[in-house]
């Protein structure tokens, strides 16, 4: 009975489990060890309410939690022990911080009397994680645990989400406390949802209504604010083209006539070059990453910029905002759309949309058609993704690792459904993909989850095949194997005189490895077998591993070289 647990004396460890359940947690990814053993012991009695997934490395736990949070409303929860367990989380925490993923990390810590004594498996995880967490806290008594967890959930999930870490000493886990739970709904020093200044909305509307060539950049903030419906209404009312950032993909439906494509270094042609032709740039929930802006000094200089953003530190950080709108994207758009005049500058805006269409034709001719219907003997990454898109009807959750395959996947998979894109954007963490796909599938078992991965990144966290086997997680793994660290190789080719320094990989028999973990799979080397292999993979009820051997020296184009302007994008 639910009410039985309150006002009862429990251990700190049990209080933690109860608090997690009270915060709405259903699943935990973790790995036990000495300093977190009391928590694992308490978990044993609650495994019907809090399902724990034993990963094979703590990095796998945090990336799984990230994938888990991306595709659903639930934040990710991670358990790790002190010392190496905690430090193994750091890469994922940094990734979650830069990509705004709500993750609650619980780490065990040595007993409080041993803190600072270099005792076994002691590390200053609070100090180490400080630059990469939204918030962290060390708890040394059982009484502090439930309030710390309530606060951790609130901070991780509110405003601009981010990872938090609660470090719990072993004596606090063993200690006794009377369990009480009070949800945290505000912290006096923290303003997660700034009140939107109505004047900024009016100023934005005035600029947009006067614009002949307005242009919307849709970022991850649209997904986080759940403003998918609002951004469509806004764009449609003003007849304004919409491009997406890498993390914003799947926020705006790719099949919508106003969707013009993907921004950034390997983004689409029109969305990049026309940034330097628009007259009003409307950036929503995005942070002008350098992979999006290229050379900042020449970025959208002709345009007035409206920046709708919940994080005050992002406004004017990279690009000056003529009209900053500080606040939640959904709320801002709900206020803004009623002030937008439909039919404003109709003729000019039509012509402006035509510009995108013209650019798309150029890209089709110069890049896309060749990429998806190649005549080369070897299979190209782009044709694989194109087929995957068609066979899954644009509705799969696509998880990617980092590198060429990631850019190809995000270029050639068109997201028709929302919250379907899981990738490591800001940090670019190789090894992210496989565990993130596991988390995504656990979070959304109803969805087809396809991991697109390279042969390099896959081997960084390949041990998580064990987690897939253990829990029967039906992740579809599509490896694009070029036997290279392809993105680095591409740069070596273009900018380092083809000196392929340590980018060629001698690879194992990946299908055999999958098989060793009880995962069905096959390797495809010829185009003629591709479609049926993809179909078999998608139709499989269980996890499936498909390796496609692709052209070794394929490059990703278009490309905005580092330091170049977005208008200097190279097509081939």
């Amino acid at each position, binding site marked *: 009975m639910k009410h039985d647990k309150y006002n009862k004396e429990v251990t700190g460890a049990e209080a933690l489990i109860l608090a997690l359940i009270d915060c*709405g947690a259903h699943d935990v990814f973790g790995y036990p060890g000495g300093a977190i053993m009391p928590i694992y012991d308490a978990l044993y009695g609650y495994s019907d309410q809090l399902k724990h997934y034993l990963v094979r490395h703590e990095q796998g736990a945090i990336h799984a939690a990230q994938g888990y949070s991306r595709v659903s*409303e639930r*934040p990710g929860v991670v358990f790790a022990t002190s010392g190496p367990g905690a430090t193994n989380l750091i890469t994922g925490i940094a990734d979650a911080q830069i990509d705004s993923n709500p993750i609650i990390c619980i780490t065990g810590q040595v007993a409080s009397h041993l803190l600072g004594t270099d005792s076994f498996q002691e590390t200053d995880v609070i100090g180490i994680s400080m630059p990469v967490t939204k*918030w962290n806290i060390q708890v040394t008594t059982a009484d502090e645990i439930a309030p710390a967890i309530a606060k951790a*959930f609130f901070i991780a999930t509110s405003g601009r989400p981010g990872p938090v870490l609660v470090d719990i000493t072993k004596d606090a886990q063993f200690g006794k406390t009377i369990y009480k739970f009070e949800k945290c709904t505000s912290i006096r*020093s923290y303003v*997660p949802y700034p*009140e939107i200044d109505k004047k900024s909305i009016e100023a934005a509307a005035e600029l947009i209504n006067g614009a002949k060539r307005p242009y919307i950049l849709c970022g991850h903030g649209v997904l986080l604010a759940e403003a998918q419906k609002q951004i469509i209404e806004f764009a449609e009312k003003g007849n304004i083209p919409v491009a997406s950032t890498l993390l914003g993909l799947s926020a705006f439906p790719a099949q919508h006539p106003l969707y013009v494509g993907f921004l950034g270094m390997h983004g689409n042609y029109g969305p990049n070059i026309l940034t330097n032709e628009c007259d009003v740039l409307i950036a929503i929930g995005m942070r002008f990453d350098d992979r999006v802006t290229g050379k900042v000094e020449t970025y959208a200089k002709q345009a007035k910029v409206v920046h709708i953003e919940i994080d005050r*530190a992002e406004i004017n950080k990279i690009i000056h905002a003529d009209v900053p709108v500080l606040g939640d994207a959904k709320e801002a758009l709900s206020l803004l759309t009623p002030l937008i005049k439909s039919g404003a500058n109709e003729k000019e805006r039509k012509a402006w949309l035509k510009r995108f269409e013209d650019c798309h034709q150029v890209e089709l001719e110069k890049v896309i058609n060749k990429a998806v219907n190649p005549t080369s003997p070897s299979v190209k990454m782009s044709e694989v993704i194109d087929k995957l898109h068609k066979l899954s009807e644009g509705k799969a959750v696509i998880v990617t690792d980092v590198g060429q395959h990631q850019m190809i996947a995000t270029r050639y998979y068109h997201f028709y459904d929302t919250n379907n894109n899981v990738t490591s954007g800001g940090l670019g963490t190789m090894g992210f993909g496989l565990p993130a796909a596991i988390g995504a599938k656990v979070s959304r078992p109803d969805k087809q989850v396809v991991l697109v991965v390279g042969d390099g990144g896959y081997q960084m966290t390949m041990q998580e095949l064990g987690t897939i086997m253990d829990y029967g997680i039906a992740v579809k793994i599509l490896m694009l194997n070029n036997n290279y660290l392809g993105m680095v190789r591409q740069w070596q080719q273009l900018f380092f005189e083809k000196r392929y320094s340590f980018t060629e990989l001698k690879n194992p028999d990946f299908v055999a490895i999958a098989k060793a973990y009880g995962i069905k799979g096959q390797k495809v080397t010829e185009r003629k077998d591709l479609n049926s292999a993809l179909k078999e993979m998608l139709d499989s009820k269980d996890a499936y591993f498909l390796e496609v051997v692709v052209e070794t020296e394929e490059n990703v184009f278009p490309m905005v070289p580092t330091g170049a302007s977005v208008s200097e994008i190279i097509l081939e």
Partner: protein
Amino acid sequence: MKQTYTISVFSEDIVGLLNRVTIIFTRRHINIENIITSETEVKGIYRYTIVVTAEKDRVEKVVKLIEKQVEVMKAFYHSDDEIISREIALYKISSEAINQNEEFQKIINAYNAKIISISYDYVVVEKSGSEDKIKRLFNDLEKFDILEFSRSGRVVVTKPMRTLSSYLKELEQNSKITTKKNNKHGKN
């Protein structure tokens, strides 16, 4: 153009928060020239006073990042003409060097400094005032063999009139705006 700015950070009294604040400077290669912490007129709220020399634009960005920390209430930056500041400095000087030296006493008087401790080997001079005066006194005393010198860092009040408690009141109201705007993950 680089200029001296005084950053005032008002925060909860939390272990480790100072570290969260200082790493923001470290990451951007901004040197903290001096830093002091003390409790403010509002019980439980602490103030860090941080002095840096940097471009205004960078200082502005750093201040936003400081304010973004969950347990920081408010952060401000001010140029030198917007603040009233004092430092205190102690100069430990060899007794032998100043023995029967009239000039020493003159200097002390001219700077409105005080001798606060006298012992067989040394005297200790205290001076409070602007950084510039403290530095000039140091230069003038150098010939007397300064055995030890220590400065407090900048103690500051700002010229703008709004009180901390009025900011805190506003903040408390704003911090409660949560329920109607739940985002993707905030609904549970």
